[in-house]
């Protein structure tokens, strides 16, 4: 089984350790991992800004780089959701590429759903003595159906206690360029999320998308909370907490 690993631009640039954690998990689950060396961006920033030409240029590269793999897996609900649910719209006026995009969409997975549903992953390598709470990232939850998969996996981590925070499905306010164009509203939404995390009494918030991670961690720190950790689910599962 050849799994094309789409690291996503944010993990690539901001926190590469998540990429290595994800690869470790995929290999532990029995996958042969292939990393296209020239990968960059899925095109979502252009797509959600209304730039169709830019989106097509970037999406085409993803098609070229990944369509020969058995699966495309990304440590992100947002980027995998872009490919799975929106590439068909990106190529709607181009029947040839539309067929290719639909074929790629059908084998595109978010990391934790791929681990649980395809690899039937059981032996989680990581262990962590902490109380954590899980934040459901919007695209993972509503586009990719990611809800119980990360919780099932976290439940297998020795030493880990998972507690649910209030409104765990509420948006943290990231929203890509929204977080900069409407910084004040975005910050307020992140504040609400920080309140929920604080009230849950967790030592760390765990989630599956880097955009939300940067937003939540950025707001926690600015609020003066230097203690609550913000971790990607792959880091916790792989036992590679930076």
């Amino acid at each position, binding site marked *: 089984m050849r799994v094309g690993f789409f*690291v996503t*631009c944010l*993990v*690539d*640039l*901001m*926190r*590469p350790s998540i990429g*290595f954690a994800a690869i470790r998990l995929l290999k532990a689950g029995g996958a042969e991992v292939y*990393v296209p*060396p020239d*990968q*960059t*961006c899925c095109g979502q*920033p*252009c797509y*959600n*800004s*209304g*730039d*169709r*030409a*830019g989106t097509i*240029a*970037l999406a085409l*590269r993803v098609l070229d780089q990944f369509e020969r793999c058995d699966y495309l897996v990304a440590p992100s609900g947002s980027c995998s959701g872009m490919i799975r649910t929106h590439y068909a*719209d990106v190529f709607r006026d181009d029947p040839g590429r539309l067929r290719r995009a639909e074929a790629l969409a059908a084998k595109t997975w978010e990391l934790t759903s791929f681990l649980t549903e395809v690899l039937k992953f059981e032996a989680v390598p990581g262990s962590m003595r902490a109380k954590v709470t899980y934040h459901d990232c*919007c*695209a993972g939850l*509503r*586009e990719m159906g990611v809800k119980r998969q990360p919780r099932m996996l976290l439940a297998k981590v020795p030493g880990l206690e998972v507690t649910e925070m209030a409104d765990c499905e*509420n*948006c943290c*306010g*990231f*929203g*890509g360029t*929204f*977080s*900069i*164009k*409407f*910084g*004040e*509203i*975005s*910050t*307020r*939404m*992140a504040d*609400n999320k920080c309140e929920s995390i604080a009230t849950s009494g967790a030592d760390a918030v765990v989630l599956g998308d880097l955009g939300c991670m*940067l937003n939540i*961690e*950025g*707001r926690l*720190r*600015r609020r003066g909370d*230097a203690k609550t950790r*913000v971790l990607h689910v792959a880091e916790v599962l792989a036992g590679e907490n*930076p």
Partner: protein
Amino acid sequence: MQIASMHFKERAHANMANAQLQRNLRKIEGKFVSHRRASLSELGDFEGTRDAGMVIRQRALDNLDAWLEIFERNATARGATVLWAETPADINAHVLEIARRHGVSKIIKSKSMVSEESELDRAIEAAGLTVVETDLGEYILQINDYEPPSHIIGPALHKSKEEVADLFAKRHSKPRKLGIEELCLEARGVLREHYLTADMGISGGNFFVAETGSVVLVTNEGNATLTTTLPRVHVAISGIEKIVPTLEDVATLLRLLTRSATGQSISNYVDILTGVKGAGEFHGAEHMYFIVVDAGRSGVLASELRPALRCIRCGACMNHCPVYQNIGGHSYGWVYPGPIGSILTPSYIGLEKALDLPQAATFCNQCGVVCPVKIPLPDLMRKLREQELERGLRPSHERAGLRLWSWLASHARLYRLATRIGVRMLAARAGRERLLHTLPLGSGWTDGRDMPAPQGRTFRDLYAERKAK
């Protein structure tokens, strides 16, 4: 209604700083969200009903011209008159002409958001006639110098009970009461008098039914029943998109509407009004008019935004919207707030007057999953973003940024070099706590948040290195 959508950011800023409003907005969860959630469980297959509702609404829109003609024919056959309003101004002109024809001096109104589009109440008063809003929320706003509504089904949602008590004491010149029941009774006492002395009643229209020529009205206060049956003349105003083919369709849509709106299995009152009072009939108006309003809707119908016209005005999208919940309806600056407003407002008043609205969404799609007629709200907002870009309505730095990103990310070697340097520089700028407190061109982010620093190397470089070993 006066357009203030171009001031979205300033208004949102002010509303987030308004502590009283913030407390009032927290009512949304208990009042709407939790009730809706509870009511879905009693309807065995809510998703199946949503599918049916979507199909009913889409079918009506796909043949709207035919259904409108059938509606006109059937309504006319029952003695009503169907008038067409191409613009908001036409609504007011029709109403004033009807009032003149029937010698009307006092008008009562049940809730109509369409009439807010044309500021009908002000036009009526300017013509020297009296108008009284009878929906409690609308009445509160009217006696507060026509404060704009902040929600499509709870127009005074932004007000607390205490604020209403103060307003009533001032306007009614009576001792201040604080019990909700007492306040309702006081309003009822004032309004009863008007019901009995009005010459004309104006209502909105939740649905216009083509097969019977009826208007369907959904209320909890019963004010629409009195408004439409006591005065001599009844005028029902609604948009062209509110046509549904059959009464059976209405039955399906009602199951979705009240549950999605307030979590009720059915509203306290559902009025279905067909034709004028017949010989020997006790109830009903002697003269019945329908004002069927275009005001930008046919343009939406002909565009890729057509699914937005499926809207049945339940308000679930705004109740569940994390942006609306934090900034309130007045921030949006026109009649329809929240996600559906962010599509309808630019469509009806002009995209250039509401540039922020389609942008002010995280695309969390909470609206899309609760919409009872499955309007893909984020997808439609994205189409408006495309239009803004195509029409050159975005700032030049944003356009340049997008071009730079897609160009750079399409050139792997340059991208590798640029990102290698970029992350190294940012990592070097961060202090010991690994945080960036400011970012070049990123004050929108760093005004309220730090940016966790990059680790310093890109994944691609590190992976290539490890593989080479």
